[in-house]
């Protein structure tokens, strides 16, 4: 018992129980993460159940969203979410790849380091800042310099007219996608850069040794080496764009139903919830919004799970 007593003096109360308590606390904390994620699904499913019970599958396919007549269909916001996220990705992906390749391969180190840090810091700027910029700077500029001229040019009845029609106030699907793209750009560039740096120097040197140009090294050695990771980062960016709320809510115009053109007002799942949830008066209205949340959860969960599986142990 003497040794046990000295243990107590030096290492706190009874070793084995202290050890067990600490380990249990750690396990409990880890389990809490799982419980939280599970709780999100369960609570959204329970909260949204009345809407699914009332409208059935029609909830996903109908685009009528009318709090007055209590008819809710989620197709408008779902389509809006997918379109904005996809457009944002199309704009941000080539730029993010370009930035990462330039910083890792071509840029002089003295410039590359500060630029890389700047890009990473910008990835942390809260989305509400991007949203405000979109609302007060991008939207007015876009309406005056792009939207109006395009509408004026378009001949009545032509395909341009149906593509560009809409109220020329700059708050539309397209500008929302631009803001989303600007927002996910630094994030994707930072992860791409991290990814490209994992390519072993020997591979690069071997390719240069064979006489490859830098372009050929990037195209035939580096990109193939990190292929899986690139797809993972794309999915990660997509996941961000799909779930992004504030940047979009400011600028998308918040109209329900299917957007008529890319310059028409629309809505995303997240923007609809952000706009209406605190003011939803009827139970069915809140239930429909929570059900929308569940739909968003499944879309993003799928995308993010694929991203994580492809990225493996990568950070971010």
């Amino acid at each position: 018992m003497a040794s046990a007593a000295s243990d107590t003096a030096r290492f706190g109360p009874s070793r084995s129980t202290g050890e067990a308590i600490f380990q249990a606390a750690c396990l409990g904390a880890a389990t809490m993460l799982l419980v939280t994620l599970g709780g999100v699904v369960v609570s959204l499913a329970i909260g949204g159940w009345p809407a699914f019970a009332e409208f059935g599958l029609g909830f996903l396919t109908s685009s009528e969203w009318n709090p007055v007549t209590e008819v809710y269909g989620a197709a408008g916001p779902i389509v809006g979410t997918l379109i904005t996220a996809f457009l944002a990705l199309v704009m941000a992906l080539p730029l993010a790849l370009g930035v990462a390749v330039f910083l890792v391969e071509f840029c002089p180190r003295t410039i590359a380091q500060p630029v890389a840090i700047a890009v990473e810091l910008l990835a942390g700027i809260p989305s509400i800042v991007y949203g405000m910029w979109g609302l007060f700077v991008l939207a007015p500029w876009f309406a005056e310099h792009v939207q109006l001229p395009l509408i004026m040019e378009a001949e009545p009845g032509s395909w341009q007219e149906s593509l560009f029609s809409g109220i020329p106030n700059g708050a539309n699907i397209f500008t929302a996608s631009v803001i989303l793209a600007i927002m996910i750009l630094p994030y994707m560039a930072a992860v791409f850069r991290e990814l490209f740096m994992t390519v072993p120097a020997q591979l690069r040197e071997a390719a240069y040794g064979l006489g490859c140009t830098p372009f050929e090294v990037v195209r035939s050695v580096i990109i193939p080496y990190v292929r899986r990771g690139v797809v993972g980062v794309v999915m990660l960016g997509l996941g961000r764009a799909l779930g992004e709320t504030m940047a979009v809510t400011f600028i998308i115009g918040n109209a329900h139903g299917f957007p008529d053109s890319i310059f028409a007002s629309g809505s995303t799942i997240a923007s609809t919830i952000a706009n209406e949830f605190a003011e939803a008066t009827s139970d069915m209205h809140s239930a429909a919004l929570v059900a929308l949340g569940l739909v968003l959860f499944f879309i993003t969960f799928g995308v993010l799970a694929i991203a994580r599986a492809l990225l493996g142990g990568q950070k971010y």
Partner: protein
Amino acid sequence: MDRALYRRLSNYLFVALTAIATLIALTALILILWSLLTKGLGGIDAKIFTMTQPAPGSEGGLSNAIMGSIMMCGMGLLIAVVVGVLAGTWLSEYGGSTPYGAAVRFLNDVLLSAPSILIGLFVYEIMVRPFHGFSAIAGAVALAIIAMPIVTRTTEDILSLQPSALREAGMALGASRAFVIRKVVWKSARAGLITGALLGFARISGETAPLLFTALGNQFFSVDPTQPMASLPTTIFQFALSAYEDWQRLAWVGALLIAVAVLSINIIGRVVAREARR
């Protein structure tokens, strides 16, 4: 065309394109920071920090929102650090290699980038609806859930970087595993743990969506955690979308404050992390 010439030209073109991409990206981001500075800087004065938010047309500041943000982020971070450090410790020191550990790690990474508005809905369902009222505590819990995965991730990363000789030496002296972890491993990883907390704090200080229907917002000064509480992001949201020009000006000031706060916390986090690697 000559093949060597073609290869050289396509290479130049490619390098030029990546440089242009970098220029475009930097230009867009500089434009945003520029608007933030020009529209926000002029509005900063002592009133911002001493007066509560005004009615349209009268004088006022953002003191209630600043206070609310600090309180809710502080409470949220506290919860997140306790849970996150313990969970990260479990992943790194105990069960990280088990199937359960792999599942926790995977789902933590998913939670890391889950849309924050869904976290808001979740906390609304478990805390606001049952108790029939928006509260600062609910806001803090929502923020904690967002910061938790970040702290967990950085804790696991930094702990697994600690040399195992450290643990072995402690155990060889007869200390228990828990003791070694708390007094030796945590201590040597201290700077990294602080970085994780700072990253979490930077992330939640700009979060808006999860606060909209948990803490709701409050136009008066309040420090009561059971009542609705103002925060910078929700006040910015309300003011920016209003039709009043003085409210919009305050929104820009608030946005500038948040951006500066987030940037400086991130920079401090980086400096601490660099010290940690030394």
